[in-house]
């Protein structure tokens, strides 16, 4: 018998006492954490992102480009890589303060290792945990793009921020077009492996700047 058939037979034998069928449990129970309102959700998001020692910059739609340029110059970034689908005005702002490479110009791991920063959009934000989720569409780039450079400047719109984890999971469920890879980011890379003392940055970006874009009338 193949390993597959043998393991499946063992597992079915082990559960022969079960008289229900899969999905008899009905819909999955969702334990949500209710939000008092959109404004409070956004405040909580900013607070929790900052609590992870990420930097939060809150701007209106017209302030994004300046915030991106400001973040790059504040952290002394001389070279920056950007995904192919990035908003052209953000790219132009980055070009004002640093040498900008397109994703396809920094194709090898080693080439990307020489780059100081990366600028991306994002897919979903989670307020209760201070998390940003990337689904790696063209405005966010491949997974490794946001991993190797030491500074990540990430732009998120207020309407992308949901209150809790169940809401974000529902929003990110793979659609008929197929599953996308996902990266959930909560603050910069961190370790507590030495005497439980938190140290920022071991392998991922040590600096995370989140530009939160609120609507003009909000």
């Amino acid at each position, binding site marked *: 018998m*193949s*390993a*597959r058939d043998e*393991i*499946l037979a*063992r*597992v*079915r*034998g*082990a*559960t*022969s*006492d*079960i008289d*229900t069928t*899969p*999905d008899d*449990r009905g819909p*999955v*129970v*969702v334990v949500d954490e209710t939000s008092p309102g959109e404004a409070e959700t956004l405040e909580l998001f900013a607070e929790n992102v900052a609590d992870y020692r990420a930097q939060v910059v809150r701007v209106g739609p017209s302030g994004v480009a300046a915030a991106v340029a400001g973040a790059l110059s504040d952290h002394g970034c001389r070279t920056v890589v950007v995904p192919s689908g990035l908003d052209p005005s953000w790219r132009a702002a980055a070009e004002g303060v640093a040498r900008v490479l397109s994703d396809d110009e920094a194709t090898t*791991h*080693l080439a990307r290792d020489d780059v100081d920063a990366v600028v991306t959009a994002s897919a979903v934000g989670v307020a209760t*945990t*201070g998390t940003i989720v990337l689904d*790696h569409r063209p405005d966010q780039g*491949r*997974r*490794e793009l946001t*991993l190797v450079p030491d500074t990540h400047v990430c732009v998120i719109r207020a309407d992308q921020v949901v209150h809790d*984890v*169940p809401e974000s*999971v*529902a929003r990110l*469920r*793979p659609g008929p077009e*197929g*599953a996308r*890879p*996902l*990266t*959930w*980011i*909560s*603050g910069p*890379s*961190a*370790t*507590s*492996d*030495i*005497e*439980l*003392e938190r*140290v920022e*940055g*071991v*392998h*991922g*970006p040590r600096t995370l700047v989140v530009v939160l874009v609120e609507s003009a009338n909000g």
Partner: protein
Amino acid sequence: MSTTTPGPLQQTSATFVGMPTFPQAARAALANTQQRKNLRHATHTIRGKRERVVAEVPEWEALRVAGAEAKDEALTHLGDYLEQLEASLTSNGATVHWARDAQEANRIVLDIVRSKEVDEVVKVKSMVTQEIELNEALEAAGIHAWETDLAELIVQLGHDRPSHILVPAIHRNRSEIREIFLREMGTVGRPAPDDLTDDPARLAEAARLHLREKFLRAKVGVSGANFAVADTGTLVVVESEGNGRMCLTLPETLISVVGIEKVIPSWEDLAPMLQLLPRSSTGERMNPYTTMWTGVHEGDGPQEVHVVLLDNGRSHVLADRVGRQALRCIRCSACLNVCPVYERTGGHAYGSVYPGPIGAVLNPQLRGTASTIDKSLPYASSLCGACFDACPVRINIPELLVELRGQVVEQEGRTAESAAMRAAAWVLSDPKRLAGAQKAAATAGRVVGTRTVRSVPGLGAWTNARDLPTLPTESFRQWWARERGEDDR
């Protein structure tokens, strides 16, 4: 425990064969003052953080129930969900392999690595690859397996074994880590800088530089998975440092070894799991990085993705109607951090990669109770119940420990303990015998006087961790007769 058809037991690995029993190993650990200090500091720190972030979630108990139900749904219909997982993985471009035991899993991984003609792999921290001792199997075939999690690196460079599920180098302090880095890094790659201090930031920086050259050149990555979603074919790895993301996205080929109990039925079940795991594990609202991938993503990450589904004793545990709940474990390690026994002995005393309360129930179920270490593990507990309260998926560890103790006693047949219990029953069943025994005890009490009794012949295991109360010089009946009665004898 009641069973249906059990699969074969897990073979105890050579590393743990002949391990001393828990009390023996614990006695040595208790004598290590430095380790006890490190452990106490670490477990109390995480415990405090966990309590604070759990208190932020008002519906925590409902979440625990949701988490337990998701795992129970998957486990009780595991055959169906495994087939569904295989189908969704395959349709997303992954290659699925099945492994009955550790040896078979290691052979599958080794064959894939050999076909890539490389002599090294980079590894994400993974309990299951430790369980099957994959690193040792690869090294034996001339392939270096580089651990990339900072704590795992410390353990690997220190030629040591992990002693905690979440923070494997918990038993080491900063000056020990500095010494290990200075002595060992240069032997396997980029050396530590000569002026390395014991500042944790400097130590982490040394690890960053040492590992980066390995990440950037590696062609094959090896991981486990925290969750495998049956309906979408998505694998999930949660981590903090980014080493996981490096290993999961930079190499051309990715091999993930996944225990069959890691399956969750649907995408929606990720919600309670991601709410429960980080808060229970590191005491954070969310861990810094989580990677989710579904087979092969064209142009992004490894273009050859293998998943090895591993049994290795799990179907044996599944057949036990009471014991199967242990397979709900999501390896958060909350039970270790609240356990008074773990806090004093550390992880090595448990003789397995799964230490602490969950290890005390999981190992004897996976491996059976034939060996001395597995026989002793159900007793490695004070049954205080803190582990059950902390468990995010409501595994009733104390209940399982008691069940397993019963199993060990039955299997042992007549022992000093069961003989003592039988003798006690004989004495207590008749007032005359009891009075006689009490007289004898009083005589012993007068002989012993006020000295502390530290051990009793034949009851060594029970008494060597406890001091007996000083024996009374007369029984209550004797005292009553002397003080109040004349004809009460």
